[in-house]
Every structure is written in structure tokens, then in C-alpha cells.
């Protein structure tokens, strides 16, 4: 199987869905003539024309709502929001309208809509262009939220999202666009609501999603190669619905859990999963659940400050070392136990 980038996987899925279903169309800022701020839609305007690939002015609430309305009449819009930070301007249409229409009107009107948008920091884009707001949407019944970490999942989940009859927030990540991975078959689909154990392990479980799931997998593989620890990685892939079963089963096996997320810790995805684990796997836990997340500040611009603020592999390894069973802790070697506690 050839390797393609996450960007290419998204592009291919969009193109295939446009070819497959006349109801599918794309809209968003700069997706046509400009070919996309991050070039996901490059070439699609030329291939499909302005009816199917619609450039919008900078009016997030307006064009997101327009997509919701078009979906109400049976079209299948795929909206691109340039970055998740701008989705804040469309909250009324997403939270008050799209998420409510099917239920509130007694099941008369499905809203088959996909909103693609990248989150994530680390590009020196500062406080207003680096957020991870997925938990806002994962909180809302009526929405589905997916957050793939690999090109294969990006493709498979995007196809599944387009075919779903509900509004789906499709979370991408700026730092994932150039990541390469195996290209799945044309008909490859990843079901919404299914997590994946991307690496099996015995000592502890790291639960993550989107870019941090890729980082976690990398860390886990490294630790295994170094023959230090056997870390299991659960890539959530979907935040709503959440695959509780896969999370709980993994922690029942390893008895230790870290939730690793790029967003802010308080009231975050990790808080939800920690609560789930104490509800469902309390007796299986050998240690308190750890949350590894970014500092709770508006992200600063300056590179050293940005690096200090964002979470990453260093913070995860620290947490793993603290949480791992004592017999396996690298720093111990039986001596640290006697060290003074200061």
C-alpha cells in the first residue's frame, strides 16, 4: 500500500464523495479559487465547477447556517471552517440550530452536514489561532464529533461522516496535514463512534485523539523499542459518540490510565474520560488517572513560551514514568524510594 499524507487522504475522500453523490457539495472560505488555506481542496473547483465547490465570503454564521438549511432540504454540504477558532462565530447555527433540528421538530428533518476544521497550536499563530475547542461540540447532544489521527482514519471517517444523516464536526489538526501513512482502499470506511487500540500494551493505557494520539503512538513505540515499558494506546477517533467500551476494556487490562490531550485540562476530554473510568472501572484502577494537557492560558506567540505552554511527548513521557508500575519505572532502579522527598 502506498503512503499518502493526511492532506491527500482528505482531498481524495472529498473528491470521491463529490463523484459519488450529486447531493454532496463543498463550501467555505477560500476553498475554490484559492484552493484552500491548507490546500485540502486543491483542484476541486477546476474539476467540479462552482456549483459543487462554493467560495463563501467571511461570514461563518451565515454560511454554516446556509449549509444547515441546504441539508434540511436533502443536500449533503461539507463545510470547511478555515480553523476551529473561527467556528466560534457560527455557534448559533451549530449548537442552537443544527444540533436541535432533528429532535426538536419531532424527527421530521435530518441534517446531513459535515463541518471540517483544523485545530491545534504550535505554529506560532498565538492565542486566537491555536485553540482546541472540540470539547465544546462533544458536549452537545445532536452533534457527532470525530478527530482522526492518521491518513487512513481521516479518509475513512470523512467518508462515513458525509454519509451520516446528522451534523458531524470533523476535527483536523494543522500539524497533521503533512503526516504520511498508508493509503486505504477506495471503499475504506471507519465507523463513527469506534475507538481503536493502535498499540497493544500491558503496563498502562494512554487514551488520546487527533494529533496527540499520533504523538502517543510514537512515544509508546519508542518505549517498547527501548524495552522499557509496554504502553497501550487507545485512539478515540470519535469524541461523540464516545466508545466507552474500548476505553474501559483497555484500562481493565492495564489498570492504569493517562488521558493525553492538546486542549486545556479543566472540563476537557480527559475530565470526561477520567469520570467514565471511575464509574466503570474503579475497582480495576491501581493508580489515579492522569491527565496530560496544555497549560490553561491563552497561547503566547513567542516560540519558547509557546513550547512551554503546549503539551507534547516530553510531558507524556514524564506522566508515563510517574504512573508506570513501580517495578517498571526507569528512574527507580530500587534507589529512588530512599531519596528525600523534596
Amino acid at each position, binding site marked *: 500500500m502506498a503512503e499518502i499524507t493526511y492532506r491527500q487522504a482528505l482531498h481524495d475522500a472529498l473528491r470521491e464523495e463529490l463523484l459519488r453523490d450529486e447531493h454532496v457539495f463543498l463550501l467555505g472560505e477560500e476553498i475554490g479559487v484559492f484552493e484552500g488555506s491548507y490546500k485540502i481542496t486543491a483542484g476541486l473547483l477546476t474539476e467540479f465547477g462552482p456549483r459543487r465547490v462554493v467560495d463563501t465570503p467571511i461570514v461563518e454564521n*451565515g454560511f454554516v*447556517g*446556509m449549509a444547515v*438549511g*441546504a441539508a434540511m432540504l436533502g443536500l449533503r454540504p461539507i463545510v470547511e471552517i478555515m480553523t476551529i477558532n473561527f467556528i466560534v462565530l457560527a455557534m*448559533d447555527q451549530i449548537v442552537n440550530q443544527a444540533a436541535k433540528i*432533528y429532535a426538536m*421538530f419531532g424527527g421530521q428533518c435530518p441534517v446531513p452536514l459535515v463541518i471540517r476544521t483544523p485545530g491545534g497550536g504550535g505554529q506560532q499563530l498565538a492565542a486566537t489561532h491555536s485553540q482546541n475547542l472540540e470539547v465544546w461540540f462533544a458536549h452537545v447532544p445532536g452533534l457527532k464529533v470525530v478527530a482522526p489521527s492518521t491518513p487512513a482514519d481521516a479518509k475513512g471517517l470523512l467518508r462515513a461522516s458525509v454519509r451520516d444523516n446528522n451534523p458531524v464536526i470533523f476535527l483536523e489538526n494543522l500539524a497533521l496535514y503533512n503526516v504520511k501513512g498508508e493509503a486505504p482502499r477506495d471503499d475504506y470506511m471507519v465507523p463513527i463512534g469506534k475507538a481503536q487500540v493502535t498499540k497493544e500494551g500491558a503496563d498502562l493505557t494512554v487514551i488520546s485523539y487527533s494529533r496527540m494520539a499520533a504523538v502517543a503512538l510514537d512515544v509508546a513505540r519508542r518505549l517498547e523499542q527501548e524495552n522499557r515499558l509496554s504502553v497501550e494506546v487507545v485512539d478515540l477517533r470519535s469524541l461523540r459518540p464516545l466508545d466507552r467500551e474500548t476505553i474501559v476494556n483497555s484500562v481493565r487490562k492495564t489498570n492504569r490510565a493517562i488521558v493525553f490531550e492538546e486542549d486545556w485540562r479543566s472540563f476537557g476530554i480527559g475530565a470526561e474520560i477520567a469520570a467514565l473510568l471511575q464509574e466503570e472501572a474503579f475497582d480495576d484502577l491501581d493508580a489515579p488517572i492522569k491527565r496530560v494537557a496544555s497549560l490553561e492560558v491563552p497561547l503566547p506567540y513567542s516560540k519558547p513560551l509557546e513550547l512551554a505552554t503546549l503539551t507534547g511527548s516530553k510531558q507524556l513521557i514524564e506522566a508515563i514514568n510517574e504512573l508506570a508500575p513501580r517495578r517498571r519505572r526507569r528512574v527507580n532502579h530500587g534507589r529512588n524510594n530512599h531519596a528525600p522527598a523534596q
Partner: protein
Amino acid sequence: MDDNSKQQTQARKGISTREQARAPIPQEEDRAALLNYYYQMVLVRRFEEKSGEMYNRARIGGYCHLNLGEEATVVGFSAGLAPDDYVYTNYREHGYALARGLPPGAVMAELFGKDTGSSRGRGGSMHLFDRERRFMGGYAIVGGQLPLATGAAFALAYRAAHEIVACQMGDGTTNTGAFHESLNLAKIYALPIVYFVVNNQYGMGLRVERGSAVSELYRKACAYDMQSWRVDGNDVLAVRDAVRKAAALAREKHEPSLIEAVSFRFRGHSVVDPDRYRNPQEVQEGRAHDPIEAFATRLADAGLLDEKERRKLDEKAEHEVDAAVKFAEDSPFPSVDEFMAGLEGYVYAPAETGEEGA
């Protein structure tokens, strides 16, 4: 455009459009249609009076906003559209739902929270919906329905369909971002939509002049190079004709436009609003220009409706509303057990629906 600018000039001069409401009924009007307008207006009046009464008897919960005083606006709006056009409204929508053919029983049952309600008791007064009749919902966030209606028009244009969308809103909505964003989008994409502003002169308790830098609201459309008209919302024929004209523009030329119907709310913002911010004299004067009385007089003057026939229509409306209340009373509440057993299906559409539009 000449016609448009003439009307705009008239409106700017503040010429009382109430004179029109007393003008003779043109010869070419169809009597059956005229009597139907009268009947619809009375039906809305009775239905809303009854809604207020049922609210006070605690049969209806939540918020409840009535169309009392706006009957000519409501019925004229609906009469100007084709039966298969799509309608989006705000939360003051009982009358619009009735005028679009929703059974009064289904509307009253929705207000009562019953399973037979038009939204199966899930939406209530502010969220009536009927897909079959293309009544695409009452929306309770001010301005929320505008991008949605614009998107529905987008879907119609995408399919090169013959239907259009009509989007009703209140005067306060014209100050929201959603209003301006939607008008702009409709114009740049040439969408088949009519924006219909009901200027009842108050956004809750805020007078239009205090809330809008431009108090002649139809003028706001000029920012989007869009045709617009102000009409007397007390004159059902004037409202109908304006909507017809705008609908034809949308249908034939894919040209969006805007209508401002100047109307008057007989009561407070909602049934619990004691209406203390309005001058009693102003309210008295507003109520004196009763659109139903005015229309009945015009019909009588034209020899189209005598007292006996009027009483017959009034009684028919009364009976229809009584039957709606009885239907709502007799209908069951939604089953809590079924609801709890099917939460997933309540919130999310199943995979197999939604391929084709309404």
C-alpha cells in the same frame, strides 16, 4: 425599480398606509379567495385568543407569543406564496402555521405538549414544524432562521427547482448579524428567497427607533442592492400583493428581495408580558385599526359579505378552534417510557433517511 422607489418615497414621507386598508376592493378579486382570507384571519384571531386562555389555564407551558393584531400580515404573507413554497418563521408563528395549512388540532396539541402535536410535543409553541406542508419551522433564537432559510433557497437553486423560500422575521431581527450575512449571501448567490419583516414596532419592549439606526426597515436591503418594499401590514391584500411580486422575482429571476409589513401587536411580547412599556393610548389606537374589522367593512362595502355570512364564518372559526382544543385535550402526552427507551433515536437521525429532500 420606479415602482419600488415610488413606494419607498411614499413610505419615507410617512403617508399613512392605513388609508389603503379602507380602499375599495378591486373588481377583479375572486370572492371565494377573499372570504377565505377573512376566514383565515378570524381563525388566527380565535386560535390566538384561545391560546392565551389555555396558557392562563396552565394547559400551555413555556413562552407563548401570539399573532393577535397581525392577522392580515400573517394571512397576506401565506396567500402570496404557492402551496409548495417553503416557509421559515420566527417563534411568533402559530398563525403562519395555520395559514400554511397545518391542522389547528396539531398546532394546539403541540402547544399542549401532546404526542399528536406537529413536532410530537418536542418543540412547543416556538418550534412548530410540518415537513409535508413545507412549514420548515418556527425558530426561537432571533435571526436563527435567516441563514437556514437562505440555505434552503440555496438548495432550491442548486436543484434548479421552481419553488421559493419565504422567511419571516420580526423588526428586531434586522439588527442582527445573521440578517445582514443572509441578505448578502442571498444576493451574491442569486437565491430564490423573500425576506419578510413584520415590523410590529417593538422588539419585545424596545421601540424600533431606539433599536435600529434606520427605522424604515425595508431600506436596509439597499445595502445589498436588493429590492424592497414597505406595506401596510393591516391590509391583507397589500401584503399578499407584495409577497406575490417578491415571490415572482425570486421564482422567475432568482432575485431575492425584502418586504417590510408594518403591523401592530395587540398585546405584550408574550402572554405573560403586562405590556407596561407601551402608552395605553398608543395601544388603544393600534387596536382601533383592527385588520379584521377593516377587511370585513371593505368586503361589506363591496357587497361581498353580509352580517349573516360573516357570523357564519366567525362561528365556523370558533368551532374549528374549539375542536382543536378538544383534540389537544383528548390527545395523549408522549410516553415517557418510549422516550427513555429511544433517546438515541430522538436525538439522531437513523442512517437510512435523509437521502432526498422535502
